[in-house]
């Protein structure tokens, strides 16, 4: 038997078999993935359309800007949706306390979660974090319930950020999901940044999901979650 034949035999070894999925579960799983793919495609198309529109609009807009002293309002400066105040109905202050200002700007976090009521990750955290990630592209009211107040500006201030969130939720794969404190490699840098900006208590309560996605120069994004009084909340992205 030649070396190649032996290799071929081994590649057909029954050891490569994997348990198949039950029919109903398989179809549900495939349909969910197809929905995610459609969403990513739609998001990318919309982003491309915005870029094309911007490219087309610039030559027309610039001369007018030069002629007119009146400032042209940017669509990104449009008023943000009003978010519930601290302690308002449906958003108890012990679960959605006011965000705090981060130390320094190196972390990239615009605000930090308040350290009150934080709990360590538990057995249910991995599934809960994925569930939150899964629902992050729903309506704003639902998004607010799933996120810490420190992340609300991301949800309300910029359509671009929201589009990024939808893309994140449709990430191709999740290479890592675990406590931030245990993260190594690039996660160590994220851990340091969160510690410096938001404090050790927030860092120690943080669960991170690394989402691998297309269209982002760095190739992946670290999504940060925390648990406060039994509620898992998304609070930022690196």
């Amino acid at each position, binding site marked *: *038997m030649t*070396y*190649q034949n*032996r*290799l*071929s*035999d*081994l*590649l*057909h*070894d*029954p*050891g*490569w*078999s*994997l*348990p*198949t*999925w039950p*029919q*109903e579960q*398989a*179809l549900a*799983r*495939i*349909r*969910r*993935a*197809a929905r*995610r*793919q*459609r969403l990513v495609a739609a998001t990318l198309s919309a982003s491309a359309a915005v870029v094309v529109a911007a490219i087309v609009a610039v030559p027309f807009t610039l001369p007018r800007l030069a002629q007119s002293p009146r400032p042209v309002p940017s669509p990104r400066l449009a008023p943000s949706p009003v978010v519930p105040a601290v302690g308002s109905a449906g958003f108890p202050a012990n679960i959605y306390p006011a965000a705090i200002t981060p130390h320094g700007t190196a972390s990239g976090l615009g605000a930090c979660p308040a350290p009150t009521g934080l709990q360590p990750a538990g057995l249910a955290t991995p599934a809960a974090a994925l569930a939150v990630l899964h629902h992050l592209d729903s309506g704003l009211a639902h998004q607010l319930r799933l996120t810490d107040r420190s992340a609300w500006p991301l949800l309300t201030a910029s359509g671009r950020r929201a589009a990024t969130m939808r893309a994140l939720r449709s990430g*191709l*794969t999740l*290479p*890592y999901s675990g406590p931030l404190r245990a993260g190594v490699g*690039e996660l160590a840098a994220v851990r340091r940044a969160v510690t410096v900006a938001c404090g050790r208590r927030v860092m120690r309560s943080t669960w991170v999901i690394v989402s*691998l996605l*297309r269209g982002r120069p760095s*190739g*992946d994004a670290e999504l940060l979650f925390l648990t406060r009084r039994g509620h898992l909340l998304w609070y930022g992205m690196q």
Partner: protein
Amino acid sequence: MADSRTGPDGFGDFVAAALPGLLRFGHVLTGDPREAEDLVQEALARSLRRWRWVRGEDAVPYVRRAMVNTHISRWRTWQARVRLGTPPDDCADDPGLRRSEEWDLLRRALAQLPVRQRTVIVLRYYEDLPDASIAELMGCTSGTVRSQAARGLAALRPLLEPGLAGVVPKARRTSTVQGGASR
């Protein structure tokens, strides 16, 4: 007519029939059971979105092509950022599967190959595709396929031969050696 439980015409039947082979192909291609499942899921989802056109031709080659392309493009994204470790000695994916020591040896040897070499080896010796088809599938020339295959074989030979020399193929001993993710 689409059925809410089975998807568009014939898709449910196709999945039921093709899934074991696709999972197996994904496992050979990636060396990681979870990665294989993810790859199959993404490729089947893509074929579901295009089922109206896919079902007209042979759907299995379409899905396998999607798996190869997705696998290579994922690797391109990760290549510069993540260096995967060697497969772990013990990682439970399915304790019920009995796997040979030779299989485990090959799994470990394949895991050390760059992804394009591994893909060429799998397509050539598992799928039995000619070099021209592999080149078309991977978007490269036949010469590149041949050189990747030669490098892959050269790398596998020293890794496999010492182990294979000591294992008699006639009476293949089995042990519960489990495949595993390398993360």
